[in-house]
């Protein structure tokens, strides 16, 4: 027997390239830098414009503070703001964790039996489509503990994308692979562990990315409607409080912190997703051309 399959050649062979290829390579390099450079430039320009508009129109700081003032507030109020950020983060991550456990757990339960899925999926949809702000007064009546209230609220918002995506993934298994498992006498548990769960991983991670953002939104919205105050309150309370006191710089500072938290959550989840999928899934492959 001889073996004729070709293997890919080393990619970094030094060969002279023609003008067209050189132009393409240059365009690629430009695009690589431009991808982060241009958004940064626009951002800096926008901040400068913001500052100028404040000065030119003599806008009072309780209506629109200058960027420098917001930054100064971020530093002077850091004790207050960061402890609030920590509270919001705690609610966000706990609810995301519960959403993962609940969403994956329920979807596994759903795939064990078509009947369970058919019977219970509508409830999940109802929970999802009813605005959380409308449900909250009820939660307020039935749940005493403040943290539990917020958690429940954020969880309701975050768990659905995980549930629906993971359910889709668990059911999107190659039929032939299922046959192969059947042929080898695999148990239900083996099929779940070795086949359905890994196959649903890209779907689950897609749901997780959405749920991460929603958990933060849920945590903030819940706090808005719950209207907490005091030392242990989160960023939403700081915003309400600052609004009442016409402390616009702090309002902006809190808003910026929430924004950055959202961006950070998205980046971290994207990074995790790429780490897990990079060897096998199309979505995580580096572009080669």
């Amino acid at each position: 027997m001889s073996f004729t399959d070709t293997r890919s050649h080393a990619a970094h062979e030094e060969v002279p390239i023609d003008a067209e290829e050189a132009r393409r390579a240059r365009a690629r390099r430009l695009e690589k830098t431009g991808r982060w450079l241009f958004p940064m430039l626009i951002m800096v320009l926008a901040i400068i414009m913001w500052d100028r508009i404040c000065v030119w129109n003599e806008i009072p700081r309780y209506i629109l503070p200058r960027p420098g003032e917001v930054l100064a507030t971020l530093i002077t109020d850091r004790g207050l703001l960061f402890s609030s950020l920590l509270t919001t983060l705690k609610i966000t991550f706990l609810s995301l964790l519960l959403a993962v456990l609940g969403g994956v757990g329920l979807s596994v339960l759903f795939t064990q039996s078509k009947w369970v899925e058919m019977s219970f999926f509508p409830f999940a949809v109802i929970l999802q489509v009813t605005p959380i702000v409308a449900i909250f007064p009820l939660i307020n009546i039935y749940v005493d503990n403040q943290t539990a209230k917020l958690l429940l609220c954020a969880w309701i918002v975050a768990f659905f994308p995980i549930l629906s995506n993971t359910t889709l993934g668990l059911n999107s298994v190659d039929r032939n692979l299922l046959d192969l498992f059947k042929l080898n006498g695999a148990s239900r548990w083996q099929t779940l562990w070795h086949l359905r769960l890994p196959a649903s991983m890209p779907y689950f991670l897609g749901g997780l990315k959405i749920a991460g953002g929603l958990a933060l939104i849920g945590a903030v919205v819940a706090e808005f409607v719950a209207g907490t105050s005091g030392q242990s309150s989160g960023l939403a309370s700081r915003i309400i409080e600052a609004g009442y006191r016409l402390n616009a710089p702090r309002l902006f500072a809190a808003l910026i912190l929430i924004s950055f938290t959202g961006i950070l959550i998205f980046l971290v989840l994207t990074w995790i997703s790429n780490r897990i999928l990079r060897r096998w899934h199309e979505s995580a492959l580096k572009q080669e051309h």
Partner: protein
Amino acid sequence: MAQAAATDGPQLILRSVGKTFGNDVVALRDVNMTINHGDFLSLLGPSGCGKSTALRLVAGLSSPTSGLLDWRGPPMGKSDVGFVFQEPTLMPWATVFENVWLPLRLQGVSRAEATPQVSEVLAQVNLTGFENAVPRELSGGMKMRVSIARGLVTRPRLLLMDEPFAALDEITRFQLNSDLLALWEQERFTVIFVTHSVFESVFLSNRIVVMAAHPGRVYGEMEVDAPYPRDEQFRTSEDYAHLTRKASSILRAAMGIEDGEGAHPDVLH
């Protein structure tokens, strides 16, 4: 002519096997067929003749509506049947080693215990050194080799193949044909090979069962009276041309096509 593929008695006899699907489609009607120990049997036929359905019945993936699968010899266990699909059907998240290990793993064989067997079968399909590659890093032919290795890792007595090379380019297909034959001559497992290629069935098998469609049934049978080992020279020999012409004319008759002047064997789709 010396028949290297000496067989020793029936391993499986299909007796009046029929299969009707829920939507009243008759996939198979009154199929009678004998598979001998050590046979390389091709099921040749056009689309819709039920050859894949027959294979699934033999695999135990579905059960016949009527008739009987009469197994001879020692009872067949899970590890006695290997199955190779039309697509490589590999788990994309798992390495080559893990994909091949799978049938053993499902029987509770640990990674360490399975390593000698997996290494041996990977060597047989010329994939030593690719244990840690994942499927997307492999070419189509190499993926199919992994799939064959997975089918053989339990050392089955019966290997079922459902048009395994249909999606490959011709050069790769010829190479895999030869490699498969070499493996079969060495290990002497029984093969049931579903194909719609006359060329492939003649090159590989010692017996060809030709099937007809609507409803799926056995139309005729043919011994491929050429000695093993068969090499690439065989593909251009007089014998081969003669045998493909014969198989082709049975197939054309099965499809209800008049076998006129200048009729030549063709790959049917």
